[in-house]
Structure formats: structure tokens, C-alpha cells
């Protein structure tokens, strides 16, 4: 509990202390997070595990600069995100964060290549869009529209889009939530490869405990608190996962 032990990689990417998030629903207060302390390091793959309502999405949103905590601080490479304004948070997401959504959130009117190219225009030294797509195994589907791709392929395009910026951080919210097992494995393989090859700090939300085995560390959340942090002695390949 509390601060984690250093995992793979060396530098500290995120340092979260006392993160609390309260939602006011009329007269009722809902504590989505209660005093969470967490460190994330360069190159590590962390799975945030917990049931619905445990606070894992809230934590991811705060790390991604989409939300601000009610109290507590988050330092990203020494910069306090909680003190940042709207424009600064947008710039932070633009340059440093790659997102992978549960339902892919591709732009339906752009091809796979164009979806990736759209974000490469935001940064100075992006990957070539075609190369990013080849990393996720979609080198032959560059000019297909999302409606012409399967769910797994769309998610891999989303991953390519996320990594093409060469982000320091990759945040994935239930990336396999909408997919069947075999497709989900393909997507997890892509994430695994990306994490290993590009050494991107990757945080992955899931409610599926089987996926935890592919991570460096597993952060268990319950009722807005970190219930436990475990380090895996060795990461399992996504192909070996069974659920």
C-alpha cells in the first residue's frame, strides 16, 4: 500500500499523493477516490484492476489530465498537473499522453492511415503513420475506413494512433472490453509489444483479473482506495492468458 516499489525502467513518470475525488450528487457525496498514493515509472506496464465503481477510471482520468482531483497532487516528471489550467492540460495530453478508449473512438470519416496521421501533426517528432500501423500488424489495411475494419483491427488502429505521437505515457481504458477473447488477445499483444519496444509507461484499466498477469505491477483498487499493489515476478505473454 502507499508508494510502490520501483519496477521496470528507471525514471519516475507519475507521483500521485493523497488523491481524492468527491462527486456531489445532490445531498449525497460520492467518494470516487480516497487518498490514493501511487508512483508510475518509465517503461513499466501497470494494470489497474478493480470492480465497477472502484475508482480506476477516475484515477486514469486524473493521470491523463482529463479530470482534476478534489484534493491531493499529481506530479508528472516533476510538474504538478493539479495546478495546471485548461490550456496546459490540453498541451500535456497533446504531447505526452496516448489514449486508447474502450470503444476505439476512431474518426469514422478518415482511413486508418489518416486517423493516425491526424495526431502525428500535433507533435514534432512523430512516427510515420504507416510504420505505427505496421507495429500493430495492420500494414496491409492502411486505406480502409473504420467501418471496413473489425473491432480488433479498429482497436489496433487506435493503439497505433496513440503511439504514433511517441508519447511518454499510454493510458488504456478497458481496451479489450468490447472484444471477444481471441481479438482481445491480439490487442493485448499489440500493447505488450509497444510497451516493450518503445518503453512507454503504460497504465491499463480492466476488470478482468486474468489480464493482470501480463503486467509488471498490478494495482488493485476497491472503494476508491488502493487495496494492494503486487509486482509480477515475470510478465506473461498475452497468448498465455486465459479468461
Amino acid at each position: 500500500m502507499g508508494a510502490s516499489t520501483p519496477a521496470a525502467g528507471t525514471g519516475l513518470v507519475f507521483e500521485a499523493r493523497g488523491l481524492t475525488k468527491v462527486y456531489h450528487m445532490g445531498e449525497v457525496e460520492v467518494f470516487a477516490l480516497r487518498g490514493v498514493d501511487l508512483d508510475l515509472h518509465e517503461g513499466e506496464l501497470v494494470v489497474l484492476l478493480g470492480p465497477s465503481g472502484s475508482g480506476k477510471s477516475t484515477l486514469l482520468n486524473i493521470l491523463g489530465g482529463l479530470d482534476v482531483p478534489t484534493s491531493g497532487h499529481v506530479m508528472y516528471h516533476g510538474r504538478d498537473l493539479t495546478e495546471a489550467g485548461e490550456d496546459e492540460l490540453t498541451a500535456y495530453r497533446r504531447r505526452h499522453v496516448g489514449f486508447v478508449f474502450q470503444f476505439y473512438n476512431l474518426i469514422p470519416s478518415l482511413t486508418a492511415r489518416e486517423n493516425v496521421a491526424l495526431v502525428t501533426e500535433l507533435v514534432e517528432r512523430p512516427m510515420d503513420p504507416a510504420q505505427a500501423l505496421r507495429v500493430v500488424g495492420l500494414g496491409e489495411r492502411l486505406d480502409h475506413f473504420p467501418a471496413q475494419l473489425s473491432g480488433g483491427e479498429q482497436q489496433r488502429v487506435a493503439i497505433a494512433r496513440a503511439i504514433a505521437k511517441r508519447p511518454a505515457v499510454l493510458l488504456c481504458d478497458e481496451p479489450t472490453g468490447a472484444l471477444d477473447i481471441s481479438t482481445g488477445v491480439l490487442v493485448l499483444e499489440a500493447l505488450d509489444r509497444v510497451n516493450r519496444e518503445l518503453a512507454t509507461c503504460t497504465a491499463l484499466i480492466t476488470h478482468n483479473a486474468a489480464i493482470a498477469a501480463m503486467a509488471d505491477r498490478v494495482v488493485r483498487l476497491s472503494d476508491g482506495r488502493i487495496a494492494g499493489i503486487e509486482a509480477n515476478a515475470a510478465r506473461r505473454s498475452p497468448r498465455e492468458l486465459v479468461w
Partner: protein
Amino acid sequence: MKGQALAIGMVLAAGISMYVTYLSNFDSLRRTQDAYYDRFRFADVFASCKRAPLRIEDRLRAIPGVAAVQTRVVVDVTLDLAAVPEPIRGRLISVRADARPALNDLFLRRGRWIEAGRDDEALVNEGFAVAHGLEPGDRLAALINGRRRSLRVAGHVLSPEYVYVMPPGEVIPDDGRFGVIWMDRRALASAFDMEGGFNDVALRVMPGASSEEIVAQLDRVLRPWGGLGALPRQLQTSHWALDNELKQLQAFGFLVPAIFLGVAAFLLNVAMARTLAVQRPQIASLKALGYSNAAIGWHYVKWALVIALLAAVLGIGAGAWLGSGMITLYNQYFRFPMLLYQLSGGVALTALLIGIAAAALGALFAVRRAVAIPPAEAMRPEPPARYHTSLAERAAVGRRLSHATRMVLRNLERQPWRACASVTGVAFAIGILFFGFIFIDVMDRLAEVQFGHVQRQDLTVSFVEPRSSQALFEVASLPGVMAVEPIRSVPARLRHGHRSRQLAITGQLAAPDLSRVVDVSGQAVTLPAEGLVLSKILGEVLELKTGDLVTVEVLEGARPVRQVAVTALVDDYMGLNAFMEIGALHRLMREGGSLSGAHLMVDPDRMRRLYQRLKATPAVAGIAITAAALQSFREIMAQNFTILTTFNVAFAAIIAFGVVYNAARISLSERSRELASLRVLGFTIREISLILLGELTLVTLLAIPPGLLIGWGLAEFLLLSFQNEFYRLPLVITPQNAAWSALTIMFAAALSGLAVRRRLDRLDLVAVLKTRE
């Protein structure tokens, strides 16, 4: 959907308010006209002659179909007001001091009726009296039969014959330059050698009797006494002007609201379709639970009807307010005893019904389609939208288009009908605006041609009787006269087959400098040595072409009847004109070089002295001052068009705002997930605004060419419908107007886009992470 409902409601309300404005004014004017004519016994047939004996009144009464006869003495004179330097044209009409006129009665507004035995008392038409500040008891002078007579104003009156007061021979109303005065019949008859006689007659026709037949019979009776041709009420100047205005109100009252209601129906259709698409799963659930298509459909149609009802209430209220304002404009030109604005239940109810019908129509199409889907199919998510590379991208320039531009183009091409409909809606807004601006230029052009190319004289002097050629030299020697051109004006009836028209043939120099014959292209026409040169419209009325022979029945002097060749038809702007070279007209009349008047060019510094001389000249029946006519024209046009333009811009902006806002809200609704995703990925609000607004910008820009064409088409259509025997309106299209129309609508569209763009600030970035498409 609140914002969209408001936008749609505004367009609907604008259409309904215009309908109410125009139709309630039409209704108010029509009712007032009917009541006025009825109560004050406005005649059905009018005729004048040289002089006829009173004893033939019985013959007039004996004409089959005649219900009442009124004979009068009517004379045109020159009026002299101390405060006005120029002589003013006036008309003296006889009335009895001891009884009201049998026909064409007068409404006494102020003062009292003339007293018996008071030869110098006069009833003055209210417009003229007010224009010159003449109160009961004041005096004015009239040149009566060579003598300057001082008349005392007994009262102000209004007459159904002069609801619209136009100086003779002109088409612009001007209360101040034409005074109508009613005087004791005995005094007038005595002054003009009309004792025991009359030179003017009005008839009332029995219901069901034919005015045309009565006109023909009246002409036959009056011919021996110099009858100048009878006119039915439809051709009486004041009535014609009022009727024409009523026709225009009716036309506007249907055409323009139809556009607004059509656009509103389309907007409602699109908005409903979108709402229903979003609520597909709920509709499916309700159907699965057992609700019928009709019940579900009615639920949604109800919302459209609520919008329509609220819009109708607003529209009727606004229309009534605007209408009551518009009627005050009419009060300035149409002189009624009382012109009250009235919003009849019929107009209000019709407005409500057409608003509801438009909304219901718009909603029904969308609703029928949506509720007809089987529940199981409706519960399944909609298939993903299919996109492809747009047409523009296949061109070489396509490779250089930004991603945002590609998104815009592909999205528009995916739903071409919806894009077309949005473009059409904005195009109509541009069209309405362009049409309004065109109208201003049309009036400017008319003034420029009429007063810059046709009427280049400073004054036109008319004589009481035709005078010998010596008069030309006498006029030339008047103070300040720098140039003079003779006119010989001969009243005549032109007949070709069964068609005829009564007018004045104008004889003038073949190639005059002052008053010229000018066609619509601005070319001056030289009159040939022989034959008639007619207005093209007169040729159409009489079914004449160049070279045809027309029968000319002269209504003056020896009243010769001749066959004359039509040597040219001139497409001109104003009047029903017939010209002849003055020598040719003299030969037709078998007379020497007589003239009815003259056009003058005058030294401005000596104008006053000239006026003084003309006022004192008994032979002068009246003068027409070109500058005064032009000023009247411009004042009326300026006032009317400032108001019309303001409304035009406002209503066109409402349509543009409504269409663009609706398209923007729907686009935002359909793409909020996409745009929020881009925000999560690090796009700024400005960058995603460009994507949203890019589509709207393209729709607006694409609407410009068809919009200008629509405006052009509307102008052509309406100008054509305004063509009549008094004036033809030229179509004037200028690049400046086109540019202003486009810019105004782009501004309205930009405002609407900005209103929607503010919603981008409130995109829920957190929710989008979990939202399925």
C-alpha cells in the same frame, strides 16, 4: 433540442408574422376601401366631355343598367399660394351647397360644408390642406378663367375619387403639388360658361349590369358634346393605384411566407429525424411493450405542434405589431377617413393553421419513417456510417487537403440530400436578401432613367386650350427660359380590332433634347416623319406590331378618325405612350402648328420670376416641375425602402441563422463523440471548432451561387408581375448587391456558428471514454 426548437420556431414565427402583416394589411385596406366606397357612393363609371346640356341627364339615366347619375363641372386650374413660389396645379369640382353629391360624396374632416350663396368658399382635399397648412378660414388664390380669384377654405374633405392623389400625368403621389377643391356649382358653372351644362359625369351601375356596355353607351351619348371617352372604375387612377397595392400585398403575403414555412418544415424534418435516430432504442422498447406506431408517432408530432403553436402565437403577435406599423405608412399615401388596422379572426386562424400544417408536414415524414422500423431492428445499434474519399479529393489538389477538410467534405458527401437541403435553406435566405437589394436598385434606375434621360426639362407648361405656334415664341421669351420645345397633346382612342385604349397622343420634335423617347437600354428614339411610335406594352395591349395600321379616333376638335401606321414600338419604363413627330400630328389633325404646351429649360436664378409670370398667365393650365417630382419619388422610395430593407435583412438573417444553427446543432450532436475524442487526444477547442464550423462554412459558401440565382429569379418573377400600364420595372443586378447579400448571410451564419461553438466548451471528455458510437 431546446436551441434547435427555438431556431425552428423563429423561422416559423417569421413566416407566420409576414403572412399576418401582409394579409392583415390587405384585409384592413380592403375592408376600409369597401366600406368607404359604399358609404360615400363611389361611382362605377366616369366620363368627361367638352360641354353637354343638363337635359341629357335623363338619357344617361335611361341607359340600361345605370342606377344613378351625377353630373358636375370639373376644371383644371392654376393655384397660387403665397408661401409657394411655383404655380400649383389644381382641380375645381362642383358641389351643391344645399345637398350632398348623389355619387362620390365627401367626408368632411374639419370645418363645415360650403354655404349657399358663398361663391368664394371651397372645400379642400385634406392632404393638400395639411401639406400647405391651410386651415378653415384661410385663403388661397386660383386663376379662374383668366382672373385671380381668392377662395376661402370652409373645410377639409376626403373623397373616394382621390384616395391616392397623383398630379395629372404623373405616377408619383404628391399631396402638395395637386390641390382638389370643391366649390359651389353655380359659381363654377358661371365662371366657365357651364350654366345649364356639365363637362363631367359619374354613373352608378346596377348589380349584375355590364360596365363595359354602359361605357360604350355613355360614349355614344356624349360623343356629340365632345366626349373624351368613359372609364370604368378599374381604370380610375386612384382606385387603380389602391387595387394594385392590394394585389401586391396579396402576392407578397403568400409567396414570401411560403418560403419561410417551407424552410421551417425542412428544419423540423431534419431535427426530428436526428432526435428519433438518437432515441431508437427507447422507441424499440416502447414498441416491444405494445405501444402502437400511431401512439409513438403522435408523441413526437405533438412536440412539433407545440413548437408550431408557440411560433404561431409569437408570429401572430409580431405580425399584428408590424402590420399596425405598416398601416401608418399607408395612411401617408392613401387618404381614407379612417384607416384602422384590424387583425381579423380569419387571418389569425389561417396563420395558425398554416403554421401547424407546415410543422406537422415536416414532422410527419421523419416520424413515419422512424416508427415503422420493427422493434428488434430498432434495438440493434445503427450500422456504422459508411464513408469514402470525396470527389474533391480525387482531383490533384485533393492530396494537399488537411484532415479537417477531408472530414468536412466526406461528411457532406455521405448525406448529400441533407447537405443539399441545408444549402437550399441558406440559398433562400440569400435570395430573399438579394431580391430586396435588387428592388432598391430598380427604383434608383427608374428614377435615373425617367428623370435623367427621359424628362430632362426643368418644367412642362400646359395650356388651357391648344394655342397657335406663336405661343412658342411667347414662352421662349418668358424670364429665365433658356430652351423650349413644343408639345401637342391630343386625346384619342386607339382601336385595333376589338381592343382599344384611350390616351393622349403626344406630338413633339423628332429628336428633342429635353423630353425624349427613351427605351430600356437608355437609347433615345428619333421619331420618324410619319406614323405612331407606341410603348411596347401598348402594342401588346392592342395586339399591334410594327407596320400595322391602328384606327385613331381623335376626341377633340373635329374628332377625325384616321388609320395610322405603327412605325415603331419602344420598350419604355413609364406610361402608356403614343408619340408622333409634331408635324405629322398636325397633318393628322389638319391644323397648323398649334401646341398644347411646352417643355422648358430654365435658368435656376430666374426660376422665381418665371413662376410669378406663369401664375399670372391665364392661358396656363398648370406646370409640372421635374425636380419636385423627382424629390417626391425619392422621398417615398427612401422611406419605403429603408423599412423594407430592414425587414428583409432581419428575416433573411433569421432564415440563415435558423438553417445554419440547426445544421450546426445536428452536426454537433452527431459528432460530439468524435470531437470530444479529439479533445482527449490533445486537440484544442479552436482546432475542433474548425472541423465543426468548416462544414457550416462550406454549406454557406455553396449556397451563395444558387442563392443569387434564387434572388434573381424572385426579382424577375415579381417585377414581371408588377408590370402594368403605368410603369414597367427594370431588372438591375449589380455585383455590389450580390456581395452585400452574401456577406450579410455569412455574418448571420457566423453568429449562429459561434453560438454553437460555445457548446464545444462543455463537451464531456470523461464520458466520451466510455461511450459506444
